[in-house]
């Protein structure tokens, strides 16, 4: 019995993992949620640097302001803003799922798309408000 089944058993994928599945939006966004979380982990250094500089005095604060105004600084800040909003919206989506809602095929796709559209939209909106109404980084 056992020997007869051996050849057939070998054909099976024993432990289906990431490379077996076609990338789906919910799966990609789950990975992005973890990536943005890890990015925000190190992004906290930026916030702390800013707070310490503000507490240290005008010279230290001027250095932070100079860095934020550079192209690299702006790109990092823009990425930080998106990662923060995206992780927050993704977190809300996960809380909805934790409560047992939104698991239908259409619902979970809709929720995932809303997270992506919402995070990009809100980030652009925040930066527009920041530049047009508040005068931007200076």
């Amino acid at each position, binding site marked *: 019995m056992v020997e007869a089944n051996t050849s057939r058993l070998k054909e099976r994928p024993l432990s289906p993992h990431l490379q077996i599945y076609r990338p789906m939006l919910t799966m990609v966004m789950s990975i992005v949620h*973890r990536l943005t*979380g*890890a990015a*925000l*982990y190190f992004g*906290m*250094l930026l*916030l*702390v640097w800013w*707070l*310490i500089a*503000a*507490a240290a*005095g*005008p010279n230290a*604060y*001027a250095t932070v302001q100079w860095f934020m105004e550079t192209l690299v600084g702006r790109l990092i800040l823009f990425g930080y*803003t998106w990662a*923060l909003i995206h992780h*927050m919206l993704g*977190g*809300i989506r*996960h*809380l909805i799922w*934790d409560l047992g809602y939104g698991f239908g095929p259409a619902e979970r796709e809709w929720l995932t798309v809303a997270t992506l559209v919402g995070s990009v939209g809100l980030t652009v909106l*925040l930066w527009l*408000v*920041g530049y047009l109404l*508040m*005068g*931007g*980084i*200076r």
Partner: protein
Amino acid sequence: MSETAPRSLRTPLGRVRHLGSARSGTRHFWNQRLTSVANVPLTIALVLIILGLLGRNHAAVVQILGSSFVALTLLLFVVSSIYHMWLGMQVIIEDYVHDETLKIVSLMANTGFCFVVGFAAVFAILKLSFGL
């Protein structure tokens, strides 16, 4: 059922290795969710505070950051976020770092990073508030 039947569901191998329940139940999961819920309003507040600081000079920024309501909001954001990211990075390390020594070192580094960054932020906010 003989008299030598095990009284526990744990396997003999598991007992020898001393690996099993950490006796913390779902506390880790729960605290991750608790801080995530707290982080939603706190993050919105942080973004609004930073938006309001754009274009202001150092003196104005210090005055606003040091005011009671803003400082308290920042403190809550930092404490809740640092705890949240401490738990989150722990899960990432446990998922991907399989070498036992490297895993323990990574978990310690995670704790160290969060304490250093967290206390630095708290210290800065308190310094801004009390103007020491």
